[in-house]
């Protein structure tokens, strides 16, 4: 064991750095899904589409502005604004005109509505942006790289992936925690998450909370997409890939639990990067293994609360 560490300790260190940045991205997407699920009790399959649209929008706005000679430093703010724009437009549209009609329906119907939305948005996205990979990495280039020492060698990492992605995840986590615990709106959201009936009985305007939460969730999805856009080429199908991982995070984390989502994302991000170093063939199934193991020990999810049944 000690010998193994001597041989592989440095690699493990690299895996840690890689894992952090991928965990950051996983978290940003999954936390929005989890928040929406906590409040609306809907697993939003279209969350993945919002991620994709956020990414595409950020890349196209970025590309458009860069041809207009926008200063370099603006690349990062553009990402954030694009995400906000996508969330603020699509979120309310979807919530008001579609989801609102099915809150009373069965769980499966709600799930399916978002599945239908997902199918529609996949094609919309293809019609709008075509199928050729789109790539805009001004933000990545802007921040450059940093050389991390590795024995007698060094490994260049991009600052964007090493600092910006995990940084945003941490800021989002802290900001969300503060928002949910310290602001009135946040507490109302938490109240609806923990006990919807009691909260509405107390006169909380559920419709407003739903709208707000969904819009917020949509923004987080779009933010995840926008932040991923400098590092990845955008192609049809990225939404489907992203959402299925987020599902696993939500179930593992526990309903509506943001700290749970953070810890789960970290576990999955690290698990996957360690797998790439030592057993690459396992990388794809690592998230599911983590999920099954966690649920075996804690059936309600990592941070989930057992829902008491009234008798």
């Amino acid at each position, binding site marked *: 064991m000690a010998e193994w560490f001597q041989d592989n300790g440095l690699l493990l260190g690299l895996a840690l750095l890689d894992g952090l*940045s991928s965990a950051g991205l996983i978290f940003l997407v999954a936390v929005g899904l989890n928040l929406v699920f906590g409040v609306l009790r809907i697993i939003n399959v279209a969350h993945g589409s919002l991620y994709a649209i956020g990414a595409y929008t950020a890349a196209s706005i970025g590309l458009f502005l860069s041809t207009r000679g926008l200063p370099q430093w603006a690349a990062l703010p553009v990402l954030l604004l694009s995400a906000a724009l996508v969330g603020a437009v699509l979120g309310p549209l979807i919530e008001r005109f579609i989801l609102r009609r099915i809150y009373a329906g069965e769980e499966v119907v709600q799930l399916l509505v978002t599945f239908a939305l997902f199918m529609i948005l996949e094609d919309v996205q293809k019609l709008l942006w075509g199928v*050729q*990979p789109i790539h805009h990495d001004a933000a990545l280039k802007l921040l450059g790289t940093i050389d991390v020492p590795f024995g007698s060698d060094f*490994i260049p990492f991009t600052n964007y992936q090493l600092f910006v992605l995990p940084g945003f995840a941490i800021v989002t986590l802290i900001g969300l925690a503060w928002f949910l615990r310290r602001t009135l709106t946040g507490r109302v959201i938490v109240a609806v998450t923990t006990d919807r009936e009691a909260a509405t009985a107390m006169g909380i305007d559920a419709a407003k909370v739903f709208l707000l939460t969904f819009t917020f969730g949509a923004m987080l999805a779009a933010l995840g997409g926008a932040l991923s856009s400098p590092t*990845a080429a955008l*192609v049809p*199908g990225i939404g489907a890939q992203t959402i299925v991982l987020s599902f696993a995070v939500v179930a593992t984390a526990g309903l509506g639990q943001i700290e749970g989502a953070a810890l789960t994302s970290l576990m999955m991000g690290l698990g996957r990067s360690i797998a790439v170093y030592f057993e690459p063939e396992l990388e794809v199934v690592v998230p599911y293994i983590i999920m099954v193991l966690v649920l075996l020990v804690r059936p309600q999810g990592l941070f989930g609360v057992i829902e008491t049944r009234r008798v």
Partner: protein
Amino acid sequence: MTATLTRREALAAGFGTVLLPATLSAQPAQRPAEFRIGVTTFLSGPASVFGVPSRRACEMLIEQINAAGGLAGVPVRAIFVDEGPGTDHLVGEIRRLVQAEGVHAVFQSISSGSCLACTPLSRELNKVMLLWDCGTQRIFEENRYDYAFRTQGYATPEVLAPLLYLLRKKPDIRTLAVVNQDYAWGRDSWEIWKTAMDALKPGVRVVAEMFPRFGSTDFSTEITRLLALRPDVVYSTSWGGELVTFIRQATERRLHERTTFVLPVAEASLQILGRNMPEGHIIGARGDHWNNHPAPANPELFRSFVSAYRQRFNEYPIYPCHHMAQAVWALKAAVEKAVATKSGGWPSDAELAAAFRGLTFPTPTSTITLREDGQGLEDQIVGMSHIDPNFGFAVPREMMRYSAAQVSAPVGQKSVDWLKTLTPAMVQQAGTAL
């Protein structure tokens, strides 16, 4: 697997012989009002980066052919079908194309999985099928088809040519890593490479074998590992968005300074990569149709195809467009040949199929011969990436052409068996500089 397949194959062939005489021979063929082609290609999902441009090329060429009087005087119409929804859907669609739409020929498909599933239908439906883009060597090495032909090269030459080029240009490589997409093409192309490399240059050490999930958007971890390992060569047959992502993420972190990339399928991504493609890495095009081909056989035709496509879609055609064009040209040549054989009469399906066997048809860059087993012989050109200001993206230089016959497994031999028989001497013998 060989044993079972041959047995199943024999069984299937048995059925075939029972069926064939009854259904195909005696049909008097009438000159149709239009010649319909069913085309399967990816219109959704990640591979639509190939599918949509190829569809455009197909539509453009058909317009041109119709404007020039059609196929032996018959106007052509294409009916497109999406490969995206999966094989069970596609198999049904092929039947619909043949039985409901009454197509006269089927062009299929991009995915090797689609080809493997659908090509046997050519036997059941007695309809000409042109495999216009898929690369799997299994099609004609494990089966015999009377109605199916591949109008371009396939995996073995497409992998072997870049390997020969690498060994010619960098004879003393010692270590290599592979990063391929985790699906059949990624695995097959690695098996071909590894087998050939062990025969041509024994002793090269494989330091990492990585097959990230198909459709991955983040290769940071793989790249970190490669940076730490410093292999002499990184081999990848990835394509589409994944190749673009991989190259951009890798160059951002200067992996290209530590290693040489060998990218046999790079051509389709170079335009999108633009100036982000590093220079001096080995790139392939699954054929010889580079946009900067120095000496195309028919410069006039080559220029007109490329410029018509550019004019219309505001981008250069990529290899799937050329492959689609090859299928169209092959069809044109075969129909004309069959009509000529019947001295003006219209050929039946069987007669049309017969016209394809052994057919040599011209392409703008060269000629392609459909050999006896149905496999097309297409030359391969490989080169070093170099940003050409005329194009604004990377094109190859120091190009070498490998003639198809040199780098394809002979008829009746399995690629992997044949590759094992290669010797290091081949490196210096094969290929001619352009």
